[in-house]
């Protein structure tokens, strides 16, 4: 007992010192601090950082060119891991490690590209619906529902197949990564609906709050209110959705690639699975490595989203 009281006494001056040094904290800063203390969030951040690092420094890390099939001659196709080929070679004698490394930038471009489109469309559409309300809201939200119920994969596969046969013998054929670009745009276009719903809900919640009315009283313009007051307050929940969506978009692209509809010129993890699943029993490393890469990346973004959600919506439970 006496120990604890002396301990308290020694703590108190420190507390006072802390208070004196008190630095003002905005909600952003507080959120960041909470995020740094959340274990899941930090694990997610580490995983995502790992993927980003691999994507950026890949060309320096990869032992072989992604299109180098020379291993066909020496260890041969489906060779098990060795010092030269740390993850073995696959059915077509590509170096698995190099292919997985070169798959990282593709995955990130798909994730970020698709979610940028989805976030932009979603925020604009949801923002208009939430702020205007009334009939505009009703019409926009029915359109959003329509986009939510469309079987996305069927549409994407159909469009990719149609487009790739349509561009033959046209100037469009020469556009690099046209197929991949199409996939990114389509994932984006079909991914905005949940973001629009979230944005609408946040705008509805915020637009009638008293501090918005206070801004209106002062004479703030609609633009001020939307972009300086409402949007920054809606941003935390939107960032969480976007982080979650990046993982989702990467997974979607992997699925499209696995079904054989990916961009033949791009190196993508889903496509590696598609090329190698038939030899799963003979050369499991060729399928497991890209599978693990997809797993780590998607897990990373989901954990990151989880951590952000805990950090910025601390009252939302658990």
């Amino acid at each position, binding site marked *: 007992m006496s120990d604890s009281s002396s301990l308290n006494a020694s703590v108190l001056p420190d507390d006072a010192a802390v208070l004196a040094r008190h630095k*003002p*904290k*905005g*909600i*952003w800063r507080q959120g960041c601090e909470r995020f740094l203390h959340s274990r899941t969030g930090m694990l997610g951040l580490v995983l995502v950082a790992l993927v980003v690092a691999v994507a950026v420094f890949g060309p320096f890390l990869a032992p072989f060119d992604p299109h180098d099939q020379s291993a066909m001659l020496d260890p041969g196709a489906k060779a098990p891991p060795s010092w030269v080929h740390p993850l073995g070679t696959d059915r077509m004698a590509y170096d698995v490690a190099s292919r997985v490394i070169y798959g990282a930038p593709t995955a990130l471009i798909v994730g970020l590209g698709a979610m940028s489109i989805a976030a932009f469309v979603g925020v604009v559409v949801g923002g208009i619906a939430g702020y205007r309300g009334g009939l505009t809201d009703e019409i926009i939200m029915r359109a959003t529902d329509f986009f939510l119920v469309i079987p996305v994969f069927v549409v994407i596969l159909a469009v990719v197949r149609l487009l790739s046969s349509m561009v033959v013998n046209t100037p469009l054929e020469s556009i690099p990564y046209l197929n991949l670009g199409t996939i990114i745009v389509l994932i984006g276009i079909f991914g905005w609906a949940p973001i629009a719903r979230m944005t609408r809900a946040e705008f509805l919640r915020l637009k009638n*709050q*008293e*501090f918005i*009315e*206070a*801004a*209106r*009283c*002062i*004479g*703030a*313009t609609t633009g*001020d209110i939307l972009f300086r*007051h409402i949007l*920054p*307050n809606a941003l935390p929940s939107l960032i969480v959705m976007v982080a979650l969506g990046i993982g989702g978009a990467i997974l979607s692209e992997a699925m499209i690639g696995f079904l054989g509809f990916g961009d033949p010129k791009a190196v993508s993890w889903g496509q590696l699975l598609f090329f190698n699943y038939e030899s799963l029993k003979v050369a499991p490393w060729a399928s497991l490595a890209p599978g693990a890469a997809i797993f780590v990346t998607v897990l990373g973004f989901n954990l990151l989203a989880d951590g952000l959600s805990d950090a910025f919506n601390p009252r939302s439970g658990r």
Partner: protein
Amino acid sequence: MLEPVRSAAASDPLLTVRNLSKSYPVTRSGLLRKKIVGTIDAVKEVSFSVHAGETLSIVGESGCGKTTTARSILNLVAPTSGEIQYQGRDVVKTFATGGREDALALRRQMQYVFQDPYLSLNPRWSVRQILREPLRIHRRGEPATWDDQIEHLLARVGLPASYADRYPHEFSGGQRQRIGIARALAVEPRLLICDEPVSSLDVSVRAQILNLLADLQDDLGLSYLYISHDLGSVRFLSRRVAVMYLGTIVEIGDVDAIFDRPRHHYTAALLSAIPVPDPTRVATAKGVRGEAPSVTERPRGCPFHTRCPAALPVCRDEMPALVPSDPDHKLACHNPR
């Protein structure tokens, strides 16, 4: 700047509200579209005026339309009908169809202090950002002088300049309300509309905020439209008071006259409900019978006749007009006390 004028009758009023009404449609969603099945008259034919340097209080129980009245003056709700004039300028028309500069000019004259300081400050903005906003919108001086102005504003409301970089959640309710008042003062208005500025605060800090409002009035010659259900603060702050019941003003006049000798039975009941801080005294509040009728089923005739102890048959059929009973005292009652 005009000198604060205490003798109200002598000068032209700053703000004049004439026959202000606000009604909301009651809708029922039908098969295809919403059907309007009736209207709620939140505010009905309200008229009053506020003179330079004076405080007019509006009192009444919850839902009597006092807040709606206050909000329609700054166009936070658009009035259904009626006229609002600020020194001869048509306020309703300026906000509805006038240019932005005209509207801003009006906003520089009238500002609003909100009821709940926990909701009326943007949680993501520091105090500096909150106070900079009106300076930016109204282009008050060079941007380089804004920090000085912010410091000055904070000092005005009794906060140290070091608070400028803190965020609303770090403050107590009273401090937040001071920030809200500072924001309203940033454009140097002549009329502050205070919508229950102390009702969400602890009793211990209420007095501080009320004193601050009184000091600001003395120093700056402000006029207040003070909305409250707290009769003690009304008597402290104001010279004239309007009593509202179910969207109409039932009695308006000099605060001492009304508090000492209420003529309307509703005012009398309201005043008898003031708690007396004397534990030996047995509560004698007569109060009023029953609940206030819902605004959707506003009674015909005098709105108060369903609860009035002195209702006459005529009260049931005929709405009493607000007519002068004494100089500077108006009353809407068929059978006054």
